[in-house]
């Protein structure tokens, strides 16, 4: 029979170990990418067009392409996602229709991203004749992002105490006025976090942009939403697997830029969340 305090120590030790197992790979990945890629990243790398079969020059168009895709994805997914969440959290009753919508959201979140890519190719590129373009890519990414935004935003709205809605009714406010003036502002930090996390996921995806927007090699900036563009994740895939003799530090440098972009957005989300969580008193 082990002493129960010793048993507790052992338990804690095991739990700490499991936590470390989670952290280790992240530190490892980040460490290697920084170590091998940092030497490639300088101002020219960030601001110049690629040259010499992408072996030299910079990755400027891929960064701009990814940012433009993010912008387009945000414009398409935020209104639909937040609007849908408000409907589901505040208005919808529990009917077969809302159950079907919820089921669809859950299932959408589980679809492999390459399927989104093929869907975007079929709908936006071919059927709607957007061609291989930022518009088609952003809309494809938006469809992938919307379920994330809807479910996190709905959760944030539901976390606002019912009590507030009762008070609003008792003060002669309509439900919509209550949403605008009290519920939405309260839920906003959670909603913003959800939006950023959804966009983050989209920023790093390769498969959905593979068939819809990404150009293999296009050393100029897009002129309209219906132009194709290079993008970071796809570029990384290309230079890692499709171009023989690619210098290692260019590959890791590109990975470092993508990682930095994603992690800094993640950091912003975390800061927003913790800032508002400290202010919240219920």
């Amino acid at each position, binding site marked *: 029979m082990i002493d129960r305090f010793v048993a507790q120590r052992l338990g804690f030790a095991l739990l700490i170990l499991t936590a470390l197992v989670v952290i280790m790979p992240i530190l490892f990945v980040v460490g290697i990418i920084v170590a091998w890629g940092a030497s490639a990243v300088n101002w020219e790398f960030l601001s110049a067009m690629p040259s010499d079969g992408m072996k030299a020059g910079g990755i400027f168009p891929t960064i701009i392409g990814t940012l433009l895709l993010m912008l387009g994805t945000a414009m398409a997914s935020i209104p639909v996602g937040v609007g849908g969440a408000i409907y589901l959290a505040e208005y919808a009753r529990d009917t077969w229709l809302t159950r079907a919508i919820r089921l669809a959201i859950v299932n959408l979140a589980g679809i492999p991203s390459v399927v989104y890519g093929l869907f975007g190719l079929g709908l936006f590129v071919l059927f709607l004749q957007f061609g291989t373009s930022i518009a088609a890519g952003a809309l494809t990414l938006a469809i992938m992002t919307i379920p994330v935004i809807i479910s996190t935003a709905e959760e944030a709205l539901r976390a606002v105490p019912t*009590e507030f809605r009762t008070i609003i*009714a*008792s003060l002669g406010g309509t439900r919509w006025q209550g949403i605008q003036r009290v519920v939405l502002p309260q839920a906003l930090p959670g909603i913003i976090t959800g939006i950023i996390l959804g966009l983050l996921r989209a920023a790093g995806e390769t498969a959905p942009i593979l068939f819809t927007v990404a150009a293999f090699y296009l050393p100029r900036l897009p002129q309209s939403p219906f132009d194709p563009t290079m993008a970071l994740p796809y570029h990384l895939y290309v230079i890692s697997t499709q171009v023989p003799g690619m210098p290692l530090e260019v590959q890791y440098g590109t990975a470092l830029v993508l990682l930095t972009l994603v992690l800094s957005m993640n950091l912003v989300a975390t800061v927003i969340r913790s800032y508002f969580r400290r202010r919240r008193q219920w």
Partner: protein
Amino acid sequence: MDKIRVEGLNFYYGKHRALTDISLAVRDRRITALIGPSGCGKSTFLRCLNRMNDTIRGTRTEGRILLDGQDIYTSGINVVELRQRVGMVFQRPNPFPQSIWDNVAFGPRVLRSHTRSGLADVIEESLRGAALWEEVKDRLRQDALSLSLGQQQRLCIARAIAIKPEVILMDEPCSALDPIATLQVEELMRSLKMDYTLVIVTHNMQQAARVSDWTGFFWMGELVEFDITENVFTRPSNRLTEDYITGRAG
């Protein structure tokens, strides 16, 4: 004069009957207290008076509640407008997590019942009405949650009177407050009855005896006794009432 007349009110949560055949009259500009043990239906009854129970699914109401002679349960009634006439203060002080100013301004803003310059007047008047003005006049932009609980509850009362209701319902407004804050709120109730009709639910029998003009005693969903407060506490007509107020039952 009767502000509210309740006639043969039955109320159901699904199949469960929570209120049975309640009839009473709430006098204009008087304080009516509703007492009784937990679960006796007094809060449910209070929420019938501004149809707050409507928000709970599966509830049903029978009978009539007349506000100034008009049945509030007929189909033509706009419930949002009704709640503007019959305001409510809740058990737990529950200001919005916004500034003091925004809390009081909420009602006038959603009702669009003020001009831009008039809003400041409405806010001062409401805070004075709730006996809070002197304590907060220099920090109206501060977060309402920085106030003490007693101040928060008076802020909620100010928020309720800012929509200029005719009746104010209070659901155990002092149960979360310390004795001093309780006395302040009771003091406030007495001054409010100059302008408003008050219906309060309370667990505290001394409070009912101290502030109310009329008292109703609820027991298991029925209104056992309803009379002038003095009569209820000195010579109740029902044995149950006597047992409850003397502490032998409930």
